[in-house]
């Protein structure tokens, strides 16, 4: 990724941006977020297929935002996240420069978000075959089996909220789970509270989740949370023809069609 390093160095040298968000070598072969602020920092930037953390979570973080103009290394899911964030008025086009990285690891710099949107829209959000198979397996179970599956999976959750922290779409200053008037979701980690928390999170992400798997990758207990959001992606497709994050336009769940089909309302 010499292109990326070179471009990052240039951007920092000419002060076109104050920080370039990218990846650096982490512990034990992991790659982690890195914030290059000086031209020489650019040398530390790396990129390969193990760069899986969704860096878009940082663009809404106060201490990063305060730095002013930001450039961000963005794979397709990160680009999608940025579009969704922009459409929710969480990022400012004038303060964000996207250094896109294509699936062939090619650097592609976008002069504005609209240009990036055009690029992103060539690709649909698609659940991969392995996960689709998992979803289908679950769907074939009886409701009682599914209930057991999820209670078993969610019981270990100790509510560290790593899933929420790692998700770029969970940028709320105060999450529903943090409100206590009313207390929508119990504070302690226990079976009921865990179930309610994960349902709440999945529904809040319906039509917004870009299927980046950040929540699942963040979970220190390996709970397959992404199956819930993937299910929402699949449902959006089967009921409403799917969705794409768009800069301008309606969001899947804040709009409707008079002829939306249901088969359960009497």
């Amino acid at each position: 990724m010499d292109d990326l390093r070179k471009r990052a160095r240039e951007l920092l040298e000419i002060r076109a941006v104050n920080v370039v968000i990218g990846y650096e070598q982490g512990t034990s072969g992991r790659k982690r977020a890195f914030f290059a602020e000086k031209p020489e920092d650019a040398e530390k930037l790396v990129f390969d297929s193990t760069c899986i953390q969704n860096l878009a979570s940082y663009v809404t973080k106060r201490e990063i935002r305060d730095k002013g103009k930001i450039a961000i290394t963005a794979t397709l899911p990160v680009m999608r996240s940025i579009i969704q964030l922009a459409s929710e008025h969480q990022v400012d086009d004038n303060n964000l420069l996207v250094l896109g990285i294509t699936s062939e690891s090619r650097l592609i710099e976008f002069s504005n978000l609209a240009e990036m949107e055009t690029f992103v829209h060539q690709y649909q959000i698609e659940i991969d075959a392995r996960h689709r198979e998992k979803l289908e397996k679950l769907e074939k179970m009886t409701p009682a089996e599914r209930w057991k599956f999820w209670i078993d999976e969610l019981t270990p959750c100790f509510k560290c909220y790593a899933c929420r922290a790692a998700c770029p779409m969970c940028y709320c200053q105060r999450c529903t789970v943090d409100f206590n008037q009313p207390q929508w979701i119990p504070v302690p980690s226990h079976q009921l509270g865990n179930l309610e928390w994960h349902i709440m999170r999945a529904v809040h992400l319906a039509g917004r989740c870009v299927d980046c798997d950040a929540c699942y990758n963040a979970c220190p207990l390996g709970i397959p949370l992404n199956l819930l959001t993937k299910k929402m992606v699949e449902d959006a497709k089967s009921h409403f023809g799917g969705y794409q994050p768009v800069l301008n336009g309606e969001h899947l769940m804040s709009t409707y069609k008079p002829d939306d089909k249901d088969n359960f309302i009497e």
Partner: protein
Amino acid sequence: MIIDKWLISKDSLEKLFNVLKKDSKKIYAPVGRNGKISFRETDRFGEIDTGYIQTAQSSKEVVFPRTEKILDYNKNKDGVSVKGFDPGSIPEVVLWGVRPCDAMGIWKLSAIFNWDFKDEIFNTRLSRVTVVGFSCARADEYCFCTSAGGGPGNTEGSDILLTQLGENGDYLAEILTEKGSAIVTIASELFRENTVLNKEQFLADVPVRFDREELRVKLEKIFESGCWTKQSLRCLGCGACAYVCPTCACFDIQDEAHGGSGMRVRCWDSCGFSLFTLHTSGHNPREVQSQRWRQRIMHKFSYMPDRLSVYGCTGCGRCSRACPADMNMLEHLISIQEAEA
């Protein structure tokens, strides 16, 4: 304080496990799930994982559960009837397969729960736990127990510590407490006399990476340093590090109402959450993540040794393994020690 040393063969471990199970104790041991190993109640020896360097979650839950009842209440027409926590409800537990760092963590928790006010709930749990420790033959780059005052064969906190003497070898059993002796008593036929053995050669090599006393002195001077912001830029502000930590003990107290009755519970909390210190008025003493990250480090390596005479870290490295953003504790501590004041 080793009371006794014995040998137990590799094949006898299962028998020992079964004896303990028959002794009507609940056994918590490392069991894998979704690729992560955690302490779970099990009654099947075959289910226990052995190949792990470290479990994803620490064993602290057995003495300090994530959510535990303090009291029950029931509102009736005469007012409220309240029933306190019942020590009788706490089961006898064997913690099997605990690494020396985790065992040491239990004693650090004890320091927190027993300075000044004595926490009866914690102490009851602690009194009913027998810790069967397993020394470490392997370590990874996250491990730094030797810098935190422990070691791969450290006996502190274990009732009995087992060290495997080479791959596929027998185990050296160091009996460290009365509870440890009790195990040997009920399974005496499994233990053989020990031919004076030195376990050191069978332990993992964990080099000392920093001097915690020096670090502590340094920390007193760098409260205002820019290093906190620099280090914590990557931090996402979740509670993963605190929740897997064997010594993190910050908690919340919450009421769980269900109609007219319910319970008051104490549950884990983390200084990394922005809401941890938020006042009702909206004022927040620790507004940004760098302040919260600083609090975490300061609390463990400066405030706790100051107030409780123990460091709040055992060097198990879990926080770094669990961190979704790869905030590496060891790396940060070393850089603090090297940083300018």
